[in-house]
C-alpha cells in the first residue's frame, strides 16, 4: 500500500498563468500551448479519473482519452473555467470506460499504486497540520472507495469536483432526480463510514 505520502502535502491545481491566452493559442492549433495546458491539468484530470475508476491504468487511459477529445474539440470551448471544461470531458471519458469495463465493485476499490502520491505543495509551512490533513485525505479517499459505484461517481463529481446537478446528470446520462438522490445517499453513507474518525475533521 502506498497511500499519499504525509511528507508531501497535497494541493489542487489552480488556473494557469494567462490561461485565456494559452487556451486561445491552443484553439488556433498551437500544439505547444495545448501541451502546456495538459501538463498543468493532468494531475486534476487523473485524480478525477482515478477516483471514479479506482484503477491507475484505467485512470491513465481515461485521462489520455480526455486529452485527445479536448484537442479535437478545443475550438468548441466557449469560455468559462477551462479546468471545469476539461474535468467534464475527463468525467465523460471515465464514465465511458466505467460502462465499457462493466466493473461494478460494491466493496473497496484497490489502494493507490506507487507514484500516485499527491502533488507537492510548495506553500506548506506547518508539517504537523499538513500531516493531519494528508491523513484526512487518505480517510476520505478510502471511504469513497467503499461507496457503491453509482453513489461514488455522483459524490465525486458533485462534492469533490464541484459540478452542479445538471453537469453530473449529463456526465452520467441520468435524470437530475436520480443524481440528487445518489449524491444525498452517498453523503449520508460517507458520514457513517467516517463516524469513528471525527477528530480528523477538527483540525
Amino acid at each position, binding site marked *: 500500500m502506498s497511500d*499519499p505520502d504525509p511528507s508531501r502535502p*497535497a*494541493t*489542487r*491545481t489552480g488556473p494557469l498563468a494567462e490561461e485565456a491566452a494559452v487556451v486561445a493559442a491552443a484553439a488556433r492549433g498551437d*500544439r505547444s500551448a*495545448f*501541451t502546456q495546458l*495538459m*501538463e498543468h491539468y*493532468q*494531475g*486534476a484530470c*487523473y*485524480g478525477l479519473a*482515478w*477516483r471514479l475508476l479506482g484503477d*491507475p*491504468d484505467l*485512470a*491513465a487511459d481515461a*485521462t*489520455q482519452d480526455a*486529452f*485527445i477529445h479536448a*484537442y*479535437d474539440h478545443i475550438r468548441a470551448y466557449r469560455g468559462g473555467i477551462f479546468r471545469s471544461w476539461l474535468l467534464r470531458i475527463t468525467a465523460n471519458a471515465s464514465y465511458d470506460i466505467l460502462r465499457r469495463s462493466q466493473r461494478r465493485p460494491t466493496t473497496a476499490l484497490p489502494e*493507490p*499504486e*506507487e*507514484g*500516485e*502520491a*499527491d*502533488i507537492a505543495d510548495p506553500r506548506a509551512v506547518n508539517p504537523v497540520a499538513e500531516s493531519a*490533513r494528508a491523513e*484526512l*485525505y487518505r480517510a*476520505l*479517499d478510502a471511504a469513497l472507495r467503499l461507496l457503491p459505484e453509482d453513489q461514488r461517481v455522483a*459524490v465525486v463529481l*458533485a*462534492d*469533490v469536483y*464541484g459540478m452542479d446537478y445538471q453537469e453530473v446528470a449529463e456526465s452520467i446520462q441520468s435524470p437530475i432526480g436520480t443524481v*440528487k*438522490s445518489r*449524491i*444525498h*445517499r452517498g*453523503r*449520508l453513507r*460517507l*458520514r457513517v463510514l*467516517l463516524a469513528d474518525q*471525527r477528530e480528523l*475533521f477538527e483540525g
Partner: protein
Amino acid sequence: MSMTTPAHPDPERLAALAGADPDALSDRELIAHVAECAACDGQVRDLWVLRAALAELPDLVPSRPLRLLPPVPEPTQSAGWRIGLRRAFAPLAVAGMVLLLVGGVGATGALGPADAGSFFQRIQFSAPAMEAATGQPEETAADVGMAPDEAASPEGSRGQTGAIATDSPRAADASAAPAESLAEMTAGQDTSRDGDLAMVEDRVGWILAALAGIGLLALALVLRRSAVPVERGSSGR
C-alpha cells in the same frame, strides 16, 4: 423544558440542505425543524464539514507518463507516395478489366455479328476447298498419277513427283483439271489470305486493347502489393 419537534425529516433532505440544494434551502419547514432539532442540526453540520473536506481532496500524480497530445497524422513523403499508389489500384484495376473484356470480346468478333467467327471459319473451310478442287484429299494429291500397274514399274518407283504424272496419259488427263482448279484455289487462297489479313488488321485494335488491359491489371496488382505495408502500419494503435 424542551420544545417538541415534529418527526425528523428524511435524512436525504438533510443531506440536500448540507449541499445547499435550492429546493432544500427554500423548504421553510425543513429549515425550521433543523433550527430546533439538535440531532438534525448536528447531522447537517457533519455533512457540511464532510463536503468541505471532499472539496479539498488533492490532485494526483499519474501512475505513468501521459501522452499529452494525439499523434500528428501527417504522412511522410514515402507514406504519401504509397497511399497514392494504393488509391490508384482500384481505378487501374477497373480500367484493366474493362479493356481486357472489351478487347477480348472485340478480337473474337462477338461485337460484330456479321463477322462472327468468320476468321476461324475461313481457316477451317480452306482445307475442304482444296479437296473439292483436286477431287482428292490434299495429302493424296501427289498420288493421283500413280496407277497400280505403274506403281510396280521401275519408273513408278520414282513416282511421287509431278514428272511421273506427265509420263502417263491418265495422269496427264487427271492433272489437267486439277491444274485449273489449283489455279482457282490458289487465287481463292490468295483472296482468302488477303481477307484474313484485312480481318486481322481490323482486329489489331481490339487485341491491343486486350493486351493493354492485361498490362493495367498487372500494374494494378504491383501497386497493390507496394501499398500493403501502409495498411498494416496504419491499423495498429
